[in-house]
């Protein structure tokens, strides 16, 4: 075979090449570099993602390990400011050892300017970070300040590397264990999405850019009839006492599978971005499979940040509620379940985007309030026919309220009395009837009409967008 192209004689391209990475992010043929390549250590460009314009920058790991000096930092600031001016998403591709040591304080000043630019842009345009290699020191906080952080298999984020850790604390740890996908995906909550390779990391960044950058319009007519694959009850067990995974329910709710954020961190709450009746929405759902669906300190914080991100970017919310309460325990109290739970109350009460709640099975106590209740300003609160809304489960309430009465009867009559009392309790304080009566539930809806009713409620609410940044709570 004869060679017709000179390129086959060249060595294989370095996978760390920033231009190559930017090409992988944008639609083919749409990349337009801003300025010529120099040795600033950063390359930025305009381009398109799924046909919609976006801005992206990449640190150049082929030069000094991607270390950032003042010139490179000013390139990043340019990229972010341009995205804000042009109202388009900005994506950062990170592979950087941090500030350039040779530049000293000048480099620190540059990195600080990058942080300030990110905060200026926060809540104004979507900011997505993709960590493809080590992002250390100053480069660690860059991604952390943005809305969504995606980490590829080789990605690492840490403030101080293994050698410093070893010399100061004596802890023996490698880069992956210290700041790889496992610790950040599961333990720290720094990373929203982990991927098996660079290509899928860029693919997820593209999907999120499309969802947040081109949100679409709600079209309730599109979900008027329940179609194949959108039966929400199919994914739920018939027995009310059986826990289930809420993710298939979310899948049935959305038009097409969405993108879950923080999938392995605080998994008792699920936060997913996806299309619903043609429009981008954020879904927040309790997951009974994990911790029985209880809210706890970490999951409340995770949900709060998601709510504030969606509110700041104008993304309406759908809240699926099946929550037995807050997780009890000394650990929870000491971890700040009160302070971190307060973030969720604050986030929902502050949110101005349309936000609709559906209680599928149960909503008890303080967790009922926190999950976008009527009192926090929900656009609409719906419940399925068998849903229960109460301070606590009816049987638990009876045991407390009627302890003396139960103790007074002979043991053989006790269970019968308990059953009667539970029935009365459900009628007076639980079930959904009382919640309807006092107006904290707007309507009881049939599961097969769920998508339509939620779409109508969202569509009829005035479009709004919170005027605040998205601090990484």
């Amino acid at each position, binding site marked *: 075979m004869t060679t017709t192209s000179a390129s086959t004689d060249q060595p294989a391209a370095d996978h760390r090449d920033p231009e190559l990475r930017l090409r992988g992010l944008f639609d083919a043929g749409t990349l337009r570099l801003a300025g010529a390549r120099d040795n600033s250590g950063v390359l930025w460009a305009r381009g398109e993602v799924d046909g919609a314009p976006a801005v992206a920058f990449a640190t150049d790991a082929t030069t000094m390990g991607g270390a950032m000096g003042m010139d490179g930092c000013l390139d990043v600031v340019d990229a972010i400011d341009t995205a804000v001016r042009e109202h388009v998403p900005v994506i950062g591709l990170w592979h950087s050892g941090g500030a350039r040591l040779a530049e000293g304080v000048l480099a620190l000043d540059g990195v600080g300017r990058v942080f300030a630019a990110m905060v200026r842009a926060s809540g104004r345009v979507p900011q997505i970070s993709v960590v493809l290699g080590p992002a250390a020191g100053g480069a660690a906080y860059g991604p952390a300040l943005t809305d969504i952080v995606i980490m590829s298999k080789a990605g690492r984020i840490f403030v101080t590397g293994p050698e410093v850790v070893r010399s100061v604390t004596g802890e023996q740890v490698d880069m992956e264990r210290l700041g790889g996908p496992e610790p950040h995906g599961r333990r720290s909550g720094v990373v929203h999405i982990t991927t098996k390779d660079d290509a899928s990391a860029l693919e997820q960044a593209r999907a999120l850019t499309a969802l947040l950058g081109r949100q679409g319009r709600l079209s309730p007519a599109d979900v008027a009839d329940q179609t194949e694959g959108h039966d929400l009850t199919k994914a739920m067990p018939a027995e009310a*006492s059986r*826990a289930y995974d809420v993710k298939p329910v979310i899948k049935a709710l959305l038009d097409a599978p969405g993108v879950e954020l923080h999938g*392995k961190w605080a998994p008792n709450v699920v936060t997913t971005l996806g299309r619903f009746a043609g429009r981008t929405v954020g879904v927040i759902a309790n997951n009974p*499979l*994990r911790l029985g669906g*209880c809210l706890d300190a970490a999951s409340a914080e995770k949900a709060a940040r998601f709510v504030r991100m969606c509110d700041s970017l104008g993304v309406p919310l759908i809240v699926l509620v099946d929550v*037995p309460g807050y997780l009890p325990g000394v*650990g929870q109290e000491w971890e700040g379940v009160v302070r971190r739970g307060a973030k969720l109350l604050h986030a929902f009460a502050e949110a101005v985007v349309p936000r609709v709640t559906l209680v599928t099975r149960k909503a008890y106590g303080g967790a009922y309030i926190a999950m976008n209740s009527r009192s926090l300003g929900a656009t609409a609160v719906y419940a399925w026919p068998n849903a229960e809304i109460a301070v606590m489960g009816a049987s638990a309430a009876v045991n407390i309220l009627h302890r003396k009465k139960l103790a007074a009867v002979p043991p053989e009559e006790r269970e019968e009395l308990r059953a009667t009392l539970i029935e009365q309790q459900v009628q007076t304080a639980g079930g959904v009837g009382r919640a309807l009566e006092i107006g904290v539930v707007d309507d009881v809806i049939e599961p097969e009409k769920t998508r339509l009713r939620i779409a109508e409620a969202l569509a009829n609410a005035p479009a709004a967008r919170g005027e605040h940044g998205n601090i990484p709570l």
Partner: protein
Amino acid sequence: MAEEIRAEMVANVWKVVVAAGDSVEEGDTLVILESMKMEIPVVAEVDGVVAQMAVNEGDVVQEGDLIAVIED
């Protein structure tokens, strides 16, 4: 790498679904716990082979207790 599955909360072990030596896929139920008046399945988070089952039906597990070990 061995994946240790640990209890997330205090619970009774209601049913043990798999045994050591079984192959499991991500999402497969390993045991069903009873806690907060709910039956809560504990599922595998990785594909692999069950190397060890550390609980029996009727056991009470505390938060952090080992339930199973799965080898990739």
